[in-house]
């Protein structure tokens, strides 16, 4: 899914930063552009907001789109105006393990295998791809009801001397952007 979005999703370069590159580091104005674009295209948000509670240091969280990005953005996101760290949500019930925090109407999910494009900025730096998506913007469509299979062949079936086993998986599905105006690749570099 990650590579499909990297191959085909429309992208928006971050331009609000000051690192002198193109794209720049991520800033609040870049986040606002994506949110405005998704809202303008009537994309549904993934999650309802998190209501404020009377707890010290917390803040309510808006209904939100998801952004799928790379863990290298930790620290970068913390510097974005209006960033709310996950731990500062009023409650932790609706948070995800991969979630890092929220800016405006986007909740950022980060992974060490998030998408990057090497040497792709104006200055030749690594570009980080943040896929900001509304609900049902993309999907994995299974073919003919065929679902993923995990396959294990014990040694007795896998070689004449029964020395090796085989493990693998197979699946027949196609990743698919269902509405291309509901998902954008917000590209940025590091500060």
């Amino acid at each position, binding site marked *: 899914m990650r*590579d499909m979005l990297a191959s085909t999703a429309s992208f928006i370069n971050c331009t609000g930063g000051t690192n002198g590159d193109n794209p720049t580091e991520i800033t609040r104005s870049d986040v606002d552009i994506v949110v405005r674009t998704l809202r303008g295209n009537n994309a549904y948000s993934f999650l309802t907001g998190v209501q404020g509670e009377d707890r010290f240091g917390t803040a309510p969280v808006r209904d939100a789109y998801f952004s799928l990005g790379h863990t290298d953005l930790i620290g970068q996101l913390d510097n974005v105006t209006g960033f709310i760290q996950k731990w500062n949500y009023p409650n932790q019930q609706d948070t995800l393990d991969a979630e890092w925090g929220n800016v405006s109407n986007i909740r950022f999910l980060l992974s060490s295998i998030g998408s990057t494009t090497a040497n792709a900025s104006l200055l030749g730096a690594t570009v980080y791809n943040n896929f900001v998506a509304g609900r049902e913007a993309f999907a994995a469509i299974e073919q003919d009801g065929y679902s993923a299979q995990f396959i294990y062949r014990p040694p007795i079936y896998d070689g004449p001397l029964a020395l090796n086993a085989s493990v693998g998986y197979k699946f027949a599905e196609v990743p698919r952007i269902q509405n291309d105006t509901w998902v954008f690749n917000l590209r940025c570099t590091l500060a």
Partner: protein
Amino acid sequence: MSSPINAQLTGTFTSDGDTKNISLPSGYTSFRMINITDIGSTAANTNVMRAEGTSSMAAGSGLYNPKTSGAATLALEVSTTTGGFTFISDSAARLNGAAVATSGTDINRANPAVVSTGTTTNLVAGVSVVRMINNTGMFQVSGMDFTVGTVIASTSFELKYLDNTGFAADSTAGFYRIVNADPRFYPRARFITAITQATSAVITLSVTHGYTVGQSVRINVPSAFGMTEINGLLGTITAVTSGATNTITVDIDSSGFTAFAFPTSATAAAGVSFAQVVPVGEAAINSSSQAYGNLLDDATDNVSFTGISIGTTVQTTGKLYQWFANKATAI
């Protein structure tokens, strides 16, 4: 005690003169091929008769025997570091080439644009893709990918589908890198280098596009690129060209639109997004025999592969080659 297991795969292909990719399971370590067409030939040529490579060789290397001209014997074996064999574990994860400095008039203003450089190693006309980096005076193209046109060894190469005659100045410094990996899924988003003002807009793309007639595409043109009226419009491809030109024609009337033009270098340096064509997918055609088109006809398709890439030095156009791939493991 371990027992060696040897596995061999074989197949054939007819060379079309371009780099040939052959899918193989992972772990193959040696590859050789034989020219079947010219067995016994005494013709006056030096066609490649036999070639081999191993995974331990540097990418693009290989050994090969040309035919002795006018005799049915093999000439002495030749070693090469370019145009040979490249073992690929994941075609979409291949690393970019090293940054190479441009020189002189680094990128001139021409149609097509010409990049001057003393290093053109591994650039193949019509095949290689380069990414331009930090091009002083021409930041409009920095970060963009281009298919390479004519290559003059150790002197220059063309950015085949870029007409930059309208730019304000030549580039005076910068770099390029060879981009070895295309995105994993087809069809792919591509950068736009030109759009005509016509009843059916003709869009030139910077890298060989691979699109087909009937596909739907979204046209994204940021305001810095002029033709803002076309931004966000959805079009169906009605014609495509490839080779000398690299265009798609879409059913969008752009005749009354503002002209498409790259931003200035200074504007680009301050930050812009690129103009791009984004594939939306459906090329489904509804007809009486197929009332409901298959909406997955042009769904994104994983076209990456594991295997070997056979360069142009170790094959001869039009010849049938039988190949053998081997791997050995100990259990």
